[in-house]
């Protein structure tokens, strides 16, 4: 869904902060992540938990990837008999948007420009806008 008056240019990733333990024990599930490779990565992560001093593997998914994340959780809960905690979250993300001019005439000019010179996209001026996305967090214990 797009807000009126703005044109979406780019969706930014969620904010990730630098901490060694976090990086080594967190897995982000994207909508394009293959299911089996996510499974393998979680399993591998579970094996090396002690090395990083963590007690669980954190699996995060947001938006479209929630379903996949949950089904990963279910797999570990049902098939592997692991303890899995599930938390719902709302994650603030930033969108890079372009402010659309209300003036129709200008819009038309722009359209013409677009046809003539499409590569200008990267040169357009953009602003960041905040948006909240639902997300899910799994804690999978070994």
């Amino acid at each position, binding site marked *: 869904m797009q807000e009126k008056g703005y044109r979406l240019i780019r969706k930014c990733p969620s904010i990730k902060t630098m901490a060694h333990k976090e*990086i080594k024990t967190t897995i*982000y599930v994207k909508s394009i992540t293959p299911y089996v490779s996510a499974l393998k990565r979680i399993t591998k992560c579970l094996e090396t938990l002690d090395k990083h001093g963590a007690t669980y593997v954190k699996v995060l998914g947001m938006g479209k990837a929630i379903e996949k994340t949950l089904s990963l959780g279910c797999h570990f809960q049902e098939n592997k008999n692991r303890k899995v905690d599930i938390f719902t979250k709302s994650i603030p993300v*930033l969108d890079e948007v372009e402010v659309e001019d209300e003036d129709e005439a200008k819009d038309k000019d722009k359209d013409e420009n677009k046809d003539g010179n499409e590569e200008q996209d990267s040169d357009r001026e*953009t602003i960041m806008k905040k948006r909240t996305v639902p997300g899910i967090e799994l804690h999978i214990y070994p």
Partner: protein
Amino acid sequence: MSSGGNKQLNKNQLFKRDKIRNARFIRAQTLKYDNAKTPDLSKENAATLNVHNFIDSRSYDIEQLFISMKNSKSSNSTRVFQSLPRKLRRRTASHNIKRIPKRMRNRAKREMNKNNLQSDINTVTTKKNGKKLNSKELYKAKMSLKLLRLFTKSKQLKLSISDSLTVSTSHKSIRQKIAFLHKLIKDYTKDKSLTDINNLLNNINGSFDNTGINQLSKISHNRIKYLKRQNNFNWLSSHIWNAKRSHMIKRWGFQIPYAPTQKCYRLTHRLGGNTAASDGALCMDSSYIGTMILSHTDNTKVNEVIKIISNSKAIQSKYKNKLYWFEGLCYNFNGDVLGPLDLLWISENTVMIRLHPSFFETIFNSILDYDNEFNLQDCRFSLSSILIRGAKTLTALSSIIRTPNPSESFNQFINISSISDYSSLPKRSIFAFNSIDPRYLSTPSPIKPKKKTTSDDILKLQNNLPADEITNILNKLSDPKERNLSYRNQNSLKQLAQRRRQLLLKKPGETKNQISFNEGKDPKIPLLLVKRPKSNDWLLILPWHWLLPFWYQLNRISRVYHIGLRQLQQLNYENQQLYFPDDFPFTKAGHLENSIFKRDSNSKKWERKPIGKRLNYTKVKNIHAMDLPSVKGEIGDYFSCDWEFLRILRNGINYLLQKEGKLTMVSSSRTSSFDEKTSLRNLNVLNDIIELYKDSQAKKENNELVPVILSSKPEKYPLDLNKAPIQLSIIETPLKVTPISCTFLEKGHPADYARIYHIPKEHYKHWLQVANGIYRSDGKRDHEIEHPKPDINHLIGFVTSGTYHQGQGRGVANGFVDSSSLETSKQNYVLIRNVGTNVYRIAKASLIDI
């Protein structure tokens, strides 16, 4: 004196004996066997040995055996060197006493003597050929020592020799240099007031601002010892550090780190790639990219120049007034593309331009020719930069940078410094502030933001940019006097050690990690830290002689690794971006790189091989569906992207189609003919075009003209048929090429210079099926299908960089194709064939935004 019996050992000897004994002792596990409860572990039943159980029961012993082997080996042969992790090992020739740090030399000598390594020590004291110095050599050695002494003295007196001793004067005899220094020192000691104040340095290290204003800067150095080695290729300030750890390459007037001596292909992919799993950073001294600062009292003049060199892209108000960093293509004054361009507007009248050294001087001179009122600073040797990327970039920088005074921009930087995935930061992420000498920190440690970083902190970057503060610092960076002022009282290592010693006197509770900043005395360093929007990496720009302190501290941080040009190329490839110059065949530098430097080295490599072991390119069979009589085996040049061939082929096909309406491969009735009047080759069939290419190769005159020009999007263009003679226009009309990135859909690894083909219409259905996947009955992909082959006229381009892509897990190739051959809207599939093979792979092509 004891007679016979055991000799009394001293404490040291006792310790050593015990050490060896302990090392040789192998521990064993005592196992209690209760025969009733535990059956023999080695046996499952009486007849068979259970290997698993048996090994498990002995695993402790085996481990101890290995430990003991290792210990007893090392306990006997200790050296002054510790055994370091692989990454930290770098000193070669450790048998050479002179290479060992002075404080360890005596011990090393003793250890070597003990191990009868006399010969190794001897190699050091005499010359290689075993002769002593003759009188001429002795004289020379003495004189150079004298020169160094005089130089040190002049440095101690803070006398500037910057203008008098430069690379251009390094050919002067040693006696002339000595005489010059003598006079300088004598004059100064005689009457201090006579010495021009401008000739005095403001620090003991010999740092000074070396800027050429409206002229190219004279290359001078504060270490006279290494002056002569830099006649043709200059050292970066981190050269000595890098030369110990990287392979260096001499290019474009600089010695640049090419690749670390340590293997780092996967490391570069993991840390520098776009993954959430990155936990480190990669840094490179990018000072070889030259900076110039352009200013003029009349801002329209500045605007005009920037309009020309950026093809009117960098003059938008976004860049001009709002401190956005510009990344794009640099154009010559005659409209040719030269290479990449980085640019930042400091004010309406002033711009900072960063250019690759291969065309820095071209632009510099053209700007001066354009208008002589410009104030143009050549900052190649007065501003240096570090390029950093990877998740730990911001954390690492926040651990070495401290400000002397409170600064809004620095606060903003600290607030976001814990972010690892910086692609979520706005396009304009720019920080500029004063910093204190980073060596004041004994151990670099990150400043943690007071609260957890949220999206509001990022929005603040966008909405509350302290523009005045940033512009203020930028003005300082772009002013030679201010840059020079930043070196005032730059501490030497000795002075730093003294100050650090005083820290020990501090009371408990007071911080001992940092030397406190002395407001009136200590230097403030103007810094610019900026995120480059397209490359998605960070640039730290600072005065030239401040680079090394920052570089040393940065490389002390864990998981921060140095890289070289090779890794930059790898990262560019992985991000499916173009790397200058290898992926810029439409520029002069790129053309030379491809058709001269790389071609030469590849062909020589091939020629060195014995005939039996190298591929005979002329005998590769079944490359195309139909063999032309003029082509034997592989087409075009084997060792580079043969743009010349592509140009003649595409232009020729274009011509034949326009003339005849259809394309005939070869005329069965007659061989090629020549026009009687002009004695030029008649062009009727495709075979004639190839012959034309051969003719042009035979009388090749000008190698330096670039055969292709860039067209960033697909476009159809007709060949001008009216030009005469048509043969010449086919050879000379430059071909328009478009950059594409091809991802393989099944097996196969593309290599550099691979040929890109268009899918023939009649085969399109087949290849579409292959793209969607043809499966065997067991559900696996069938790779054994016979594919139809395209013809030579389907060749549309070449791969400039291609290999197996670590991130995608399949082959990816970046290359250029003829712009007219691309479909604008439809899904683009192409075929890729490596040089010297006849296997075609289907790949999906997407345009690269340039």
